[in-house]
Structure formats: C-alpha cells, structure tokens
C-alpha cells in the first residue's frame, strides 16, 4: 500500500505539488491524470525519491520511505518512463536483468527470469541477445516494462510509459499491461495526460490540477459526478466515454 499524506514539493520557490493526500491499495491500478504542468510526474517521482518532498509523509506498507536506504527503496519499486532509457551498450537480456543484478541474484536465476519475462511481454526469445537499437519503439518499451518487473517488485511506477508510441502499438501495450495487472496483481501508479488511457486501464483515477488533487474516484464515479467544471471539461462527454469504457472492458474480458 502506498500512502501519500499532505505531500508538497517546492522546487525553486514554486509549489509543484500542493498538499496531496492519496492512498493506493495493494493490487490497485491507480492513474494520476492531469494537464501538463499539473505535477503528476513530480508526485510519482516523490515515491521512489527521485524528487525530494518539502512537506508531508509518504509511507509504503506503513513505513516512512525516508527511513529506508534510498537505493534499496528504488530497487524494490519498478520504474518505467516514457523515454524508456535502456542501456544502449547492453543486450536486451542484460537490460531486463538490471535490478536482479544489482540485487546480486545468481546468473542462472537471472537467465531464467529473463526468459520468463520475454514470454510475459510477448517478446521473441531471440530478442534476448539483441541490442536495444535493433528493436522497434514498442518492443523497446516492452523491454522497459520487463525490466521494471524483473525483481518482482510489489509496486510499479509508470510515467507516461506509452506516450511516445504510435496509437496501434500503444493500444496493444495497454491491453498487455491490463492483462499483466490482472495476472500479477501489482500495485500500479500510472501517470498519463490521456484520459481515455486512464479510463481504460485504471481501477481508480486521481485528477491533478496545478499541483492539487481535485478528485479521486473510479472511472464510473468520475463520469457520473465530476467534482468541478475543471474535471467535467477534462473528462469530456460522459456518454461517449462511458461507451468507450464499456467496449474496452468487454474487449479485455
């Protein structure tokens, strides 16, 4: 369980995140949504301490994250970013096994895990010995997700992971991620500016505006009772969204 309690971030005199309190239950898929500059990425990065908080407390399973060793904390959390950031001089297998290697797993356990993840992400087993530049953008992000899952973390932080992909590849990866979430039951916090993506994937959606949390709820709640004009405008035509949601849910089953 991730619990943010009154979290604020002041960077260079600007309050990027403003007293955000949010709890993500174990196994929940929560989307952080908002326009650019709303502080959603910054909020995400406070959880693996890539961004220091100025005020408030963040607890994971009840323990204050500041108390933990920062590198140990990060190794226990999967992290996926839009620009992927694979090591270009490492093979796909080495990239996927990055965190297991940092954790000192023996080699055959790492190899076994890599094979497992390649299958899970529907990557060709032969891709293991390739280099990232030999893969397409979509395949690279599959490797990025596999890398985040490698050490079997309970929590996955995803920062607009599919934002740079073409629509078809993006939809394919969204379907894949939903299936992985159902199967593995990870706690996922997912940043996106795309409300359709959030509606399709998330159990719960948190909407941010100018660093403040303006509404948290299930997709249906958001569509039925938008808390403000901002949310209503951001969510758009509820009938259309509900329809899209229904289709997406049916397709997923």
């Amino acid at each position, binding site marked *: 369980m991730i619990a943010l309690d009154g979290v604020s971030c002041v960077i260079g005199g600007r309050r990027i995140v403003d007293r955000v309190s949010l709890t993500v239950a174990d196994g929940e898929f929560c989307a952080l949504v908002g326009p650019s500059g709303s502080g959603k990425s910054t909020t995400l990065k406070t959880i693996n301490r890539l961004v220091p908080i100025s005020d408030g407390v963040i607890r994971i399973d009840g323990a204050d994250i500041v108390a933990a060793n920062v590198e140990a904390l*990060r190794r226990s959390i999967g992290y996926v970013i839009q620009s992927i*950031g*694979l090591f*270009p001089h490492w093979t796909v297998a080495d990239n996927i096994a990055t965190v297991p290697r940092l954790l000192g797993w023996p080699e055959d356990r790492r190899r076994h895990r890599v094979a497992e993840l390649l299958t899970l992400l529907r990557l060709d087993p032969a891709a293991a010995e390739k280099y990232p530049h030999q893969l397409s953008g979509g395949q690279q992000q599959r490797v990025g997700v596999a890398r985040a899952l490698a050490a079997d973390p309970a929590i996955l*932080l995803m920062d607009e992971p599919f934002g740079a992909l073409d629509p078809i590849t993006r939809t394919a990866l969204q379907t894949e991620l939903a299936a992985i979430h159902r199967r593995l039951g990870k706690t996922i916090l997912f940043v996106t500016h795309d409300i359709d993506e959030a509606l399709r994937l998330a159990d719960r959606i948190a909407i941010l505006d100018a660093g403040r949390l303006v509404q948290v709820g299930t997709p249906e709640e958001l569509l039925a009772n938008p808390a403000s004009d901002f949310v209503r405008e951001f969510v758009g035509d509820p009938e259309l969204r509900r329809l899209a949601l229904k289709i997406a849910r049916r397709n997923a089953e």
Partner: protein
Amino acid sequence: MNARRNRVIPVLIAVFALGGVVGPFLNQAPNRLVSGTPIAIWQALDRPILFLIVAFAGLLIAVSRIGATPNLHRAMLVLATVLFLLLLYGAGKGATFFMGGAALAARVSLGWGFWLMVLCAAFAIVDAAQRMNLPPRMRLLLAGAFLVYLVAMAMNGTFDQLSLTRELAIRRGAFLAELARHGELVVGAIVPALLIGVPLGLWATRRPRVRPVLFGTLNVLQTIPSVALFGLLIGPLSALAVAVPAVGALGIHGIGMAPALVALVLYALLPIVRNSAAGIEAADPAIIEAARGMGFSPRQILWHAQLPLGLPVFLAGLRIVLVQTIGLAVIAALIGGGGLGSFIFQGIGQNAIDLVLLGAIPVTLLALAADFVLQLAVATVEQRSRR
C-alpha cells in the same frame, strides 16, 4: 550515380600531373649544402616505370569517372596504392642511378615535384579508403600490409642512395636516441595530463560553477604561444632548482626536459578536461534517470553508463591531444629538451633540408600513426556501443 561522381580524383590527378611536368622529381648536388640541379621525372625514371605511373594515373581518372560503387572504390584504392609505391620505388631507383660513380659527398635528394605527386597519391588512397567505409579490422589489416611492403622495399636497399636515407645512416645513433626522447616527451606529458585532466573534467560536470572558471583558465593557457610558454617556464623552474636542491638533483632545471614536459602537460589539459566532461555528459539523460530510478548508486551510474557511453567522446579527445603533443614536442628542442625537433632546428641552422626532413617526416608519421590507431579505437568502441 551522376550526382555522386568523384570530383576529388580528377583534381588530385591534375595536381599530380603538374608536379610531374613542372616540378623536379629529384635534385642532384655535389654535397649536402648546395641546392644542386633539378632532374625531371622523365630523366629520373626508367621508361617502364614512367609508363606505369602515367598508365595508373590515367586508369584512376577513368575509374573515378565511371561511377561510385564499392567495387570501383576498391579498384581506386588498389590503383592509388600502386601509384604511391611506384613513385617511391622510382625515386629510389633514380637516386641509385644518379649516385652511381658520384663522389661520396654527392647527394640526390627528393624534389618538390616528387613530394607533390606522392602527396596526391596518398590523398587518393585516403579518399578511396574513406569511401569504402571499411570496418576497423580491415583498415588495420590494409595499413599493416602497406607498411610491411614499404619496410620490405627499404630492407631491399631501394632507398639507400637517397640523401634522406644517407643522412639517416650517418646519424643512426642520434636518430634513435632523439626518437626515443620524443616518445618520452609525449608519454611523459600525456600520462600526467590524463591523471590531472580526467578528474578535473569529472569535477566540472559535478560542479556547474567550477566549469566556466576551469575552462576559461585552460583556454587562456592554450592561447599562449608555445615558444613563449617554454621560455616563461625557464625562470620559475631554475629558481625552484636553486632554492630546493633536492628538486635540482631530480633533474629538474630551467632548461631541458622538465620545462618542456610542464608546457606539454599544460597544453594537453584543455582537450582532455573538455572531452572528459563532454564524455560524462554524452549519455542520454533518460538513461541516467532510468538508472537512478532502478536504484543505481552515483558511482554505479558513472561506471556502468557514463564511462562506457562517453568513451568514444573521450577517445576522440585523446586523439586530438596525442597528435597535438607529438607536434608540439618538436619545440622542446629549443630549450634543450631534445626530441626529433633537434634535427629540425639543426637543419634550419645549417640550411640542410634533408636534416629538417629527418626530424619532420618521423614526427608526421608518428602523428599519423597515433591518429590512425585512435580513430580505429573510436570506431571499435562505437561499434560496440552503437545507439
């Protein structure tokens, strides 16, 4: 294919022809101090060799006009290489012919026509090799084969009667000593410059405020003319040797190797520091962010991402530094530091061009070899960490 027609080769061959028709191929003189009488290429060379040179030059143009395919580039590389070797062989043979029966003090030296032609042939080789875009291993193999062939020609006595070779034969001991000294100067400057420069470059990336001050200082150092810097160091270093006798006992004096090494280190610092810093920053910020997010320590990021990804940039800097230092070490001779510069300055003093070349040619070859090797290293490393 028309758009990619080679324009380099026709120009090179035109200059080549000019050198052949107008310039003296060899010079014959009764001793090494007078300038002598010019010998044209058609007087210097046997008919068959002359014919072959003309034929190969013509073929080179013809091939370059056909188009730009890998096979044609390969043909051009072979033609240019043969042309180059024919010129060397011809010059050696010509010298042997004109020295036959001449007095021991007589000299047959290479004329500017020869140098122009050889240079054009060399450029044609480089041009063809670049168009072929060979992998590092092939380049090394070809350069090796070329070198072996040249050495074989030299061992065979082809060049023995050229004035340059005779000059070398007379000064063999001194030449080897100065060559070794030149190497000492270069290595003795590069190693400390790396030991100082790499940490400084790292420091500059960690402290944004240090950077402009550091780079500004090094830039100013770089602008001091080399002769002036060598001279400027004489004062402080001799004062130091007098004040602290232990330092003097180590061989550090106002003149000699010590000021030369200090100056060479100072000149080497800017490119090393700048390229170390640029290398550290070469990695894509996304890679650094992902690495941090996965729980890499700063040292692990440096070791696993920044250093390997910055290596090509760093090696490119090292290449500049090596070539620069090999050239600059010539000046060391002016303040008693020795090295191949000794021959150059002696030669200038005695107006003996062969002596100047005895210093200048090895310096050029050393610089070219260093450049070639590091180019290969960069290509190899880049091939491994292609993005």
